[in-house]
Structures are given as structure tokens and as C-alpha cells.
């Protein structure tokens, strides 16, 4: 057991970043500029690839685009109300910078812990969440308000800057994971959480048992190099829990980066299937499995392995979503399409009638 000393339990890696395609690139500096760009594209049929930090560009069908629109100049914090635990931020703001800023007052937006150059808008559009969703829920649960520039260049807002709101249809949630299907996310209001107390990363023998036993752990992760529980709270209690888990522990949170390989996939299964999923992953593949959540990010070689993992996951009511694949990959990025595809097509068509924003990326090549 290690108390007090900081030892390296978890290896840190940096997330993969896509290379910008060799296309003309524009960086709108205001939402109005972005909206007129979209209106013009809709009128002329110019297809746009929206670019945040490039860390989630591997998701979905490849986009054939004429122009790259990057959000890097839309990166302001519009308002941060620490006493209200809300943050309004533009889409191009970097996750790492935003979280560093929030940490100065002991708060977090629970965005991915190892973000690389990811932007807030990219994380929301890709519908990805941090490991701490085990305790705080997925990113969509913190989406209080969204401002979108629709495919045809209108600025629309949904939700509001309060923590509880039932005023019409939940556009903020619909935008989460929409990958450009409704247009470009301009800004979002996120619900924040206070981070209070002492933090520990604890190595555990049996991660599934640790998750069942702990009350509201921040995360319980399993990797080929060990399994870890992430705790935070009153110091005595955290220390007592860490000791009771019998593992080695260290102060602070050490998060593993996403695994990398020829293929990187997100296996999504019911929480109780996480341990089984880990057994199905072949030797030689790397992974980070989130107990209590049901997401396993796995990386390795061979399209046949991806297909096999998908067949298994879908047979158990889950999904395998490809995060990165080689350019000539024969694997469908989404797998069996979800129900209600026609409805999805109608929704996308209403917001982006000329289908100019990331066209074809969504399931069903919408």
C-alpha cells in the first residue's frame, strides 16, 4: 500500500488527432459569420466538414466535403456563474483549457479527462462523455442550452441557462451526438459540478465487484495493465475506502488515455456485460472498460475482429461504434442502424435541407 506518495499507477497517453484534409479552410469569428457561410453553402450546395480539435473525426461515414469550417475562433467563455454552477461557452473552446479554468474554483464540466486538443463543441457533437459519467451521467445530462447555426444558416436556441427546464422540445439533447446533423453547434450552456475534497486512484483486483460495492464512485476502469477505482470526497472516508479495497492507491486522479491501434472502437453494452466484453476482446488488443457504464474503448488490428465484437455486442442489445478505422476499412462505422431512421432523416432534413453540414456521416448515411 502506498499512502501519501504519488506513484504512477496509470500510464497516460494522448488521444489520436486526425490530419486536416487538403481543402480550403475557413474559421468564422462570429456566429453571424458562420450562419451566413452556412446560408451560402445551402444555396450553392457546397458541402462542409466541421472541424473542432480533430480528435473525433474518425466517427461515422467519411464526409466528402468541399470546404473545412473550423471552430477555433469561436472559443470564448460567454459567461461562467460559479455560484450557479453554470457555464456558457463557445464551441471551439478547448476542453483542456476550460477544465483548467473551472478547476481554479473547484468546479468541473465533467468533460473527457484526457481530451488532447478536443473542443467543447466537438465533444458535444460527437456525444462523448468523460469517465466520470459513472457518477455524474453522460455529457447530455449537463446540456442546459444550445445555440445552433442550422444547415441553412439560421441561428436557433433551445433550452435555457438554468439547471432545470421543461420549455418545449429538448434541442440541447437532440444536438448532443448529432455530429452536425442539425447544423453547427455555436455555443452551449453546461451544468457544472463542484469537485470537493481528497482524490485517490486505487488499484483494484475485481473491478466489477468494486463498482457494485462503492457508492457513487467517479469511475471504475479496467485496462490490460490493471483496474482502478477513482474516488473523491472527505479525506478520512476516501482513505478508509481505498484501504478497504485492499489495493495500492495514490493521491490524485490518474486517467488512462484512449487506446490506439489500426481500429479503435467503442463497444457499448449493458453495464453488467462489461466483464464479458473484456473476455471477448482478443489478446493483443488494448482497452479501457468502464464498469457501471457499459462503454469499452478497444483498439487493435483486424477488421474481422471488429465484426466479431459487433456481432457479439449486437446479440446482447448493444452496439459497436467505430472511432477510428484505416481509410480502406470494409467495416461499417455504425453497424445495424437504430430504429426510427426515417424520423431521423426528417429531423435532419428540417434543420439542414440541402444537407451541407457533414453530409452522410450519421447512421443510414444521413
Amino acid at each position, binding site marked *: 500500500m502506498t499512502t501519501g506518495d504519488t506513484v504512477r499507477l496509470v500510464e497516460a497517453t494522448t488521444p489520436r488527432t486526425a490530419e486536416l484534409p487538403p481543402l480550403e479552410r475557413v474559421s468564422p469569428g462570429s456566429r453571424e459569420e458562420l450562419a451566413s457561410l452556412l446560408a451560402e453553402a445551402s444555396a450553392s450546395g457546397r458541402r462542409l466538414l466541421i472541424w473542432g480539435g480533430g480528435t473525433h473525426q474518425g466517427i461515422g461515414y467519411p464526409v466528402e466535403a468541399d470546404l473545412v469550417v473550423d471552430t477555433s475562433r469561436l472559443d470564448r467563455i460567454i459567461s461562467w456563474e460559479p455560484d450557479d*454552477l453554470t457555464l456558457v461557452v463557445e464551441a471551439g473552446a478547448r476542453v483542456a483549457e476550460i477544465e483548467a479554468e473551472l478547476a481554479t474554483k473547484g468546479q468541473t464540466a465533467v468533460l473527457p479527462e484526457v481530451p488532447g486538443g478536443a473542443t467543447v463543441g466537438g465533444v458535444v457533437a460527437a456525444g462523448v462523455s468523460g469517465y466520470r459519467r459513472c457518477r455524474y451521467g453522460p455529457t447530455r445530462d449537463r446540456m442546459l442550452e444550445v445555440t445552433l447555426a442550422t444547415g441553412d444558416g439560421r441561428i436557433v436556441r433551445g433550452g435555457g441557462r438554468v*439547471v432545470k427546464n421543461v420549455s*418545449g*422540445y429538448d434541442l440541447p*439533447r437532440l444536438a448532443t451526438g448529432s455530429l452536425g446533423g442539425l447544423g453547427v453547434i455555436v455555443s452551449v450552456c453546461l451544468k457544472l459540478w463542484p469537485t470537493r475534497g481528497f482524490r485517490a486512484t486505487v488499484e483494484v483486483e475485481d473491478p466489477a465487484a468494486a463498482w457494485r460495492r462503492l457508492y457513487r464512485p467517479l469511475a471504475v476502469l479496467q485496462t490490460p495493465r490493471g483496474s482502478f477505482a477513482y474516488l473523491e470526497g472527505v479525506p478520512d*472516508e476516501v482513505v478508509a475506502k481505498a484501504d478497504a479495497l485492499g489495493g495500492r492507491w495514490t493521491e490524485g486522479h490518474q486517467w488512462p488515455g484512449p487506446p490506439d491501434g489500426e481500429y479503435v472502437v467503442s463497444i457499448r453494452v449493458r453495464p453488467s456485460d462489461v466483464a464479458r466484453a473484456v473476455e471477448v476482446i482478443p489478446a493483443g488488443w488494448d482497452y479501457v472498460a468502464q464498469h457501471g457504464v457499459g462503454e469499452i474503448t478497444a483498439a487493435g488490428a483486424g477488421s474481422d475482429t471488429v465484426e466479431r465484437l459487433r456481432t457479439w455486442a449486437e446479440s446482447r442489445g*448493444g452496439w459497436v461504434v467505430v472511432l477510428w478505422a484505416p481509410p480502406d476499412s470494409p467495416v461499417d462505422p455504425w453497424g445495424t442502424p437504430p430504429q426510427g431512421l426515417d424520423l431521423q432523416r426528417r*429531423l435532419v432534413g*428540417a434543420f439542414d*435541407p440541402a444537407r451541407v453540414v457533414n453530409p452522410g456521416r450519421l447512421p443510414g448515411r444521413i
Partner: protein
Amino acid sequence: MASPGRRLALGAVTLAADLRRVLGADRVSDDPLERHLYGKDAGVFRGRAALVVFPETTEEVAEVVRIAEEHRVPVVARGAGTGLAGGAVPEEPAVVVALTRMNRIWDVDLDDRTAWVGPGVINLDLSRETSPHGFHFAPDPSSQSACTIGGNVANNSGGPHCLLEGSTVNHVLGLEVVLTGGEVITVGGAAPDPPGLDLRGVLVGSEGTLGIVTKVLVKLTPNPPDVRTMLAAFGTVEDAAATVTGIIAAGIVPAALEIMDRAMVEAIENWLHAGLPVGAAAVLLAEVTGETATVEDEARTIVEIAQANSAREVRIASDEAERALLWKGRKSAFGAVAQTAPDYYLHDTVVPRTRLVETMGRIYEIAAKHGLAMMNVFHAGDGNLHPLIPFDSSDPEAWEKVQKAADEMVELCVRQGGALSGEHGIGREKRDLMPLAFGEDDLAAQACIKAAFDPSETFNPHKVLPRGTSCFDRAVPIPEGAWI
């Protein structure tokens, strides 16, 4: 477009006959009394049910939708009718689809912490069923002993404990829903983040206007290992509100933070004798949950903050019986109002928590200006206000004054950066106030969602969006100036 051919009187007979072929005679009612009863919810609006049907299976709901669409008659889904915004009240003669018989709890899965339930399951029954296993359904509206999970889903209902746990939408993992044409789809599931647009997220809170929910996969929440429930009495409502702001600012998100004002506490005490301190201008009920060391630490901090804001009395419930009594008092508040006046009108609005103190002060001013009484009991931790005006509806002038004052209060909250509704929904009640919170394009975007789901306007028409709101008009060319 509303269909021009909705002439019910002539078609009602064949409609009823068609429905009876599917449901049998006893589950299609055209009884005038029943139609009258099903024309109202717990709010102030009244409508008229053309027929009331009681399906028991998803297939039956799908058939009802298909038949109603054929007859061009709208359908209005209904749970327990405890909604306060007129959501379940038909705006035009409609088939009211009562879902209370679809009240089965299927597979409670303790490994995944989920359960598939029928929309007619009563909220509290679900928690009662799962509590022996150490779990509960977190959303706990004060009406939880009557309201249904389907109604909770449709209104994205909240409750005192949604401060920590979030509203219904955070606890719904999947839905089976009957859409236009009687199409049945299942969205979401126990596995996280299904590919494609989050239809589940937009169906929750859609107030029955997009489809009828026939099954719900809910997330079950582990019962907390320990709990502390505190009560603090203050000389002014502002001090109580400042304590709430102080607690959030101190980095504590309690399980619940509820304020009751003097008039409300007196009404509750007269009736229930729950042990609330009468005479205080405001009582704050705070609850923290978690492991023992955490709850003790947080309880200590909350007591300090209350004292720093001039609390006259701070008390921690000494046992489960005292705690249960305090909560019973809180959750019976609306019932207690009956002693004060025969009717009450209650609004549900939200302000940023930093604006609580100022907003509360101004809400009392508005009531006083109109010569109206005012009682408050609300989810202070979320900034979710429920200003309640007791009145006598037999006095027509009173009702006019009440509506005027209520509208001013909503406007005030929106101007403070707040929202029209935190948990009761828009329904019929706040439909025409939507332009206070949203611009024309924002509303058009919402109308696009409605149109994509329900092109024939079958599901609960004329709710949520003001009449005349429609999806973007594509015929209008993109303005010249917008081109680059």
C-alpha cells in the same frame, strides 16, 4: 396544418365502432360523465373528450392511433391526470387514451440497475417495488403517490430530490413509443449512447405531442447509505434564499433544498402537525445523502451557512420517523392550501440560483400589488419556484387578477434569466407565453421537431407551441444580406 375535416359529431359513431372492434365495448367509453371527467387535469383548463379508451397493450395503442388518424381525430395521452399545465386536456374533441391499465413492471434488473415498466405504473409503486432491493426511482414529484411514469416522462417531471439526481430525463434509458401511423419503435436501451440522433432525449418532456409512450426503461438509483435531514427557520425569506445560494456556492449539491414560507408552514402545521416551526418567515428543508463522513461534513457546513444567514433555529432530524414526517409535511403542501381558500393557482418557473433572493422579494411585491395572498413552497436548490396564489374561483374578478399576477411573475423570472417551466411543462397553460423565452426562429425549430414526428397533427394538438408556429418556411428565399 390542422386537418380541415375534423367534424366529429358525424364521425363519432363510426369512430367508436371502429375502436370497439379493437378494444371491446367496455374499454371504449362515450359516457358523458366519464368524458367530462377526462376533459380535465389538476390544472385550471377544461376540454372535452370525444371518447375515452383504455388500451392494455402496445398493439392496442397502435391500433387506436391508426383508427384515430383515419378518422382525423386527434389523440391525447393521459396518465393519472395530475398534470398542472393542461397537458392532458383536449383542446379539441379528441380520443383520450388513458394509459393507467398499462401498469406492469417487467424485469427489474438489479445487475444493470434498470427496469422496463408500463407507462401507467404509479411513480411511488416503482420505488416501493425496488426499495427492498436497495434501489429507487429517483424522480419524486410531490404527486408521486398518484402520478404515472408515463406522465413523468412526458413532462420530464422533477421533485425535491432532483437537485442531486436530475429530472426524469436523466433516469430514462429507453422508450417504446407509438408514432404516427401506429408505427412502434424502441429508442435507447440499457447500453449507453445508441448511434444516431437521441430521439429518446427529445421524446422525454414532449408532453404527449410526438407520440404515445408504451414502455419505459428506467434507471434505478441505489438508496444512499446515510442521510441527514435538516430544518432551519429564518426571520425573512431572503435569508433562507441566501442560505441556498450560499450552500451551492460552497460546493455542496445536497440531495434536496426546499423552502416553505410562513403562510405555507402554517397551513401544513394546522393540518398535519409535522413539527415545522410556525412563526418563522421561511423554513428551509435540506437533505444530504451519501456515506456517513460525507453527510456529516456537509450537514455541518450547511448548519454553519444557515447560522451565518441569521437562522433562528437549526434542527437535524434525529431519526427516520422525524425525517419522514418532515417530508410528509413538505409533500402535502398543496393539499394543505385547501384550508386557506377553495382554489389556488400555482406557477412553476425557474431562475438562476444567484437571482433567488431578488426574485423572491419581487414576487411578494407583485402579489401585494394585486391585493392577492401568496404562499410559497419550492425546490429552492434548483432555483425552481412555485409561487402559489390561493383564491376563490366563484369570484370572477379574483381569477382575472390571479392570472394577471401570475403572468407578471413568469415574466419576471424569464427576465431574470430564468425559464418558463422547471418541471410542470408548458402544456396549454404556458403555450402562449413561449415567445417570452424564445425568438421566432427558436420556436420554428421546435415546430420542425413536431412536424417531423407528427405530420398529421394527431398527437395532443395545440400544446406547447403557440398557434401558428410552423417549421421554417422554405418558400422564403434566404435574405440577400446573408450571402457572402
